[in-house]
């Protein structure tokens, strides 16, 4: 019986789950969500996800290789990070965006702290939130159901349900639409149903425990039921809050990341409740509509505290002993928080002696350390400023393009426009339009008028003869499908060529569009105001005054 060998202590058997199988279960659980995203946004999503996963794995491999550590890509954790990062990107994100995110997530957040199991923040989420600090990258949401081309994506903005919720109104979507995903958002948040499906799979496979998601969603639901806007039904409000945005993705996939969530059962519950409280706070009281990412990252930083607070009661110790123990633990925890004095010394010359050989060595060593520190600092600053600069240029380019399009719509005969020094009450901006030969063609006035449910902002082009050359609505809050009927190209083109004061009926009139009377009247009023402004501009060339008498 030579082959009988045993060296291990009991138990002599193990269950089949390994770290690798847990990670691959997470990947499997993401498949429905990914499939739904492909269905909505087209094959571009697949390419984006592949780039995200590929770059994550590459960064992990490269870092471990260069620092002479063991190869860890086989545990699939980098794949999971890449997949989750992709799931939290908009479908029209540029292809370099996930590369930047995964570089930050994998190298700085994960590997700098020692790799799998030692990072204190979720790498995927940290990468995503870094990207969110660049204004233009993460705010363009695509309308579902129009497939994006693989190359060259326009930034078409579609409102997400969260932007409605942030303004205190319900999104114009049915429950079915919210569940299945007829809405704008990230890849992983368009379809609540598919995320739920994946989450259930993870819970059934015992990869995650249901404590964190249930506490998270439960807290959100209860808070939404209590603090709902006066005009909205609390139940509908709570449903909309739970199903919109990245909440489900965050609750089932990001908050439950084993490394960055508490270990103890009670700690996990507190973690979930904390995430819920913070998310609700950020959704309602911050300038941004979404708060899931920041909430989870903040709670990630509190995990060590929750783990201590949630430590299981000692077996056999009575209930009062527990309270005493808690009080003692709390005291000890508070006592343990102290500020560590930074261990930096700048003693170039010690004791006023002339620098000898030792001191020279010391100075060299310090200079070297300082040099390293400086290089890292400069690199970090360069990277961050570079990316910001790059994205700002993008912003400027997009802005210029938008202006050009607007000009083409409002004043087709003009080739370019420039800001005028004129100011007039009622005009948000006045631009002069010039033809190819640099001749003044007319003025574009941006005005506002009260519509059915808010201000309608429009750009009106008026030529030098005082005739309207075109009208474009740039911003409004009218009902989609009703008020917007007055903003179709056809409806707006009726204003072209009019001059003087346009009436609602009779001569020199533009009829209101049926069903959108208030909006039509608002547009007419705005055009009238623009005409009046231009009329005074031409006569006086400067200090214009306009009396709001007509409307």
């Amino acid at each position, binding site marked *: *019986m030579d*082959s*009988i*060998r*045993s060296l*291990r*202590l*009991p*138990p*002599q*058997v*193990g*269950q*089949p*789950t*390994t*770290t690798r*199988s*847990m990670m691959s279960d997470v990947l499997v659980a993401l498949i429905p969500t990914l499939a739904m995203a492909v269905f909505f946004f087209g094959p571009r999503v697949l390419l984006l996800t592949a780039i995200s996963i590929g770059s994550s794995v590459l960064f992990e491999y490269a870092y471990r290789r260069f620092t002479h550590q063991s190869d860890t890509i086989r*545990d699939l*954790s980098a794949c999971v990070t890449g997949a989750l990062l992709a799931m939290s990107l908009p479908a029209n994100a540029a292809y370099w965006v996930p590369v930047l995110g995964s570089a930050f997530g994998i190298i700085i957040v994960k590997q700098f702290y020692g*790799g*799998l*199991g*030692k990072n204190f923040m979720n790498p995927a989420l940290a990468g995503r939130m870094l990207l969110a600090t660049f204004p233009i990258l993460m705010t363009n949401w695509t309308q579902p159901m129009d497939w994006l081309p693989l190359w060259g994506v326009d930034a078409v903005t579609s409102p997400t349900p969260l932007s409605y919720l942030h303004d205190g109104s319900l999104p114009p979507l049915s429950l079915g639409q919210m569940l299945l995903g007829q809405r704008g958002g990230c890849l992983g948040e368009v379809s609540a149903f598919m995320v739920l499906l994946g989450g259930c799979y993870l819970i059934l496979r015992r990869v995650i*425990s249901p404590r964190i998601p249930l506490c998270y969603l439960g807290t959100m639901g209860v808070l939404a039921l209590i603090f709902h806007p006066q005009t909205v039904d609390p139940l509908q409000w709570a449903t909309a809050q739970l199903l919109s945005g990245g909440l489900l993705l965050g609750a089932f996939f990001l908050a439950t990341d*084993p*490394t960055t*969530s*508490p*270990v*103890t*059962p009670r700690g*996990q519950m507190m973690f979930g409740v904390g995430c819920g409280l913070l998310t609700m706070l950020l959704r309602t009281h911050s300038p941004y509509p979404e708060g899931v990412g920041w909430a989870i990252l903040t709670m990630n930083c509190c995990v060590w505290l929750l*783990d201590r607070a949630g*430590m*299981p*009661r*000692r*077996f*056999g*110790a009575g209930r009062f002993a527990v309270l005493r123990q808690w009080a003692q633990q709390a005291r000890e925890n508070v006592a343990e928080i102290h500020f560590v004095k930074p261990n930096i010394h700048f003693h170039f010359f010690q004791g006023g002696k002339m620098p000898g050989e030792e001191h020279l060595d010391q100075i060299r060593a310090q200079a070297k350390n300082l040099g390293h520190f400086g290089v890292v600092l400069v690199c970090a600053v360069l990277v961050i400023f570079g990316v910001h600069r790059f994205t700002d240029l993008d912003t400027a380019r997009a802005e210029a393009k938008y202006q050009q399009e607007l000009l083409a719509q409002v004043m087709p005969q003009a080739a370019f426009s420039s800001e005028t020094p004129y100011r007039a009450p009622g005009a948000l901006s006045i631009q002069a339009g010039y033809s190819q030969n640099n001749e003044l063609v007319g003025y574009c006035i941006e005005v506002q008028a009260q519509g059915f449910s808010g201000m309608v902002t429009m750009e009106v082009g008026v030529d030098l003869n005082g005739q309207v050359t075109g009208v474009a609505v740039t911003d409004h809050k009218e009902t989609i499908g009703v008020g917007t009927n007055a903003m179709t190209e056809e409806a707006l083109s009726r204003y072209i060529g009019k001059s003087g004061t346009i009436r609602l009926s009779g001569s020199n009139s533009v009829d209101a569009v049926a069903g959108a009377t208030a909006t039509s009247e608002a547009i007419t009023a705005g055009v009238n105001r623009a005409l009046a402004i231009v009329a005074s501009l031409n006569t006086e060339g400067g200090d214009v005054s306009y009396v709001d008498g007509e409307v």
Partner: protein
Amino acid sequence: MRRSFFGGVNPAPYKESTRRKPIARLEYAPEQVVLPLAMSSEGDSVPAVKPGDRVAVGQPVAAGVDLAVSTHASISGRVLAIEERPHPWGGRSAAIVIENDGQDTPWDGRPQPLDSTRVTLDLLLARVREAGIAGMGGAAYPTAEKLRRAAGKADTLIINAAECEPYVTADHRLLLERSDKILLGAQTIARAIGAQRAVLVTEGDKLNAAEAVERRLRKRSGKVELCTVRTRYPLGAEKQIIQTVTGREVPPGGAPLDVKCVVLNLATVFAIQDALFRGRALTHRAVTVTGGAVARPRNLWVPIGTPLSCLLQSAGGLRETPCLVLTGGPMMGTPQHNLEAPVIKSTNALVCLTALERRQQSQETVCIRCGKCVTSCPMHLAPSFISRALRLNELHRLPKLHPQDCIECGCCSYICPARIPLLERVRQARELLEKGGLD
């Protein structure tokens, strides 16, 4: 609503191959039996025979001193030698070797059977001591001593028929086939030690045995309660079974008596009633021989002292080379290197695992903080924190993590997806604490 214990794991049971097989006698009687002098947790017995003496079944061959239990010949024959032999707890130790004469002659001097209504505490303790009974679930604590301490102090007698270890079915079969005698024994013991309640705890995977007990209970209007709970490891652990039945938690460092409970294994109860009502000493016990490497897994009624190889022979031998041979179940059992080691009083199973069953695949990897060890520890410990404190050498954290509470059930090592030997770490931490006196 029944209370339950926190944590626990659900290992694959693998009981199907033996749970339907009745307890059978050995097909090939052993040529010799080896009776180690160390059979209980409380010290060795002293030989009472010389090499060359003839002994009969049930004749005492070693007398217990202090708390140690006495040992009886399990076959009739001639004492060959008293020498060092392999012991299932590891290593070698002194043992009495008896050569089988194949007659199985019973000993003349065995005590008279008692009437169940006339059993008093003194009589019970005397008989139990005489019969050399030690805990037959694994711990091998002398039963007479346990009962003596419990007398008058315990209000609940718990009969542990949980058998939560995978593979093992000896207690299941014993309960199914001998439920009448076990109930009688339980009732008698409870009355003798003055316990108001006697609860027989079994698991949901032994429903036929539970039904058999229930039928008998209906007929005899006995005072024994039956408690069937959901199968979960480690229900059979003393503290967990007490918590499940009574909701009381044994205080840290305490014994079951601190919460007025006494827990006896099912096989122990059967041995006690054998000693009381049939005058037999503890010479045989039920052993499950199973595992993927065994050709014909079955439950056997085995003379104590039979070498493990003889058990395998009666179970059809080995089908393939086992990766690991264990006495006891795979969760808490002891690995055996030498198949000449004998069955002792606390051996309830011989399990021969194949490599496939053992799933000994992977290397230890880093902890990913999944928390499964914390949610599966029935003693409310945090093994991952203990392991971390050891790894980072933060020994001042250990006293607060209470590694001394560990019952060594192995749930943490079993469940760990990173394959960290957490039980080993916890044990290490406990030894450090006990040695260094860190607190």
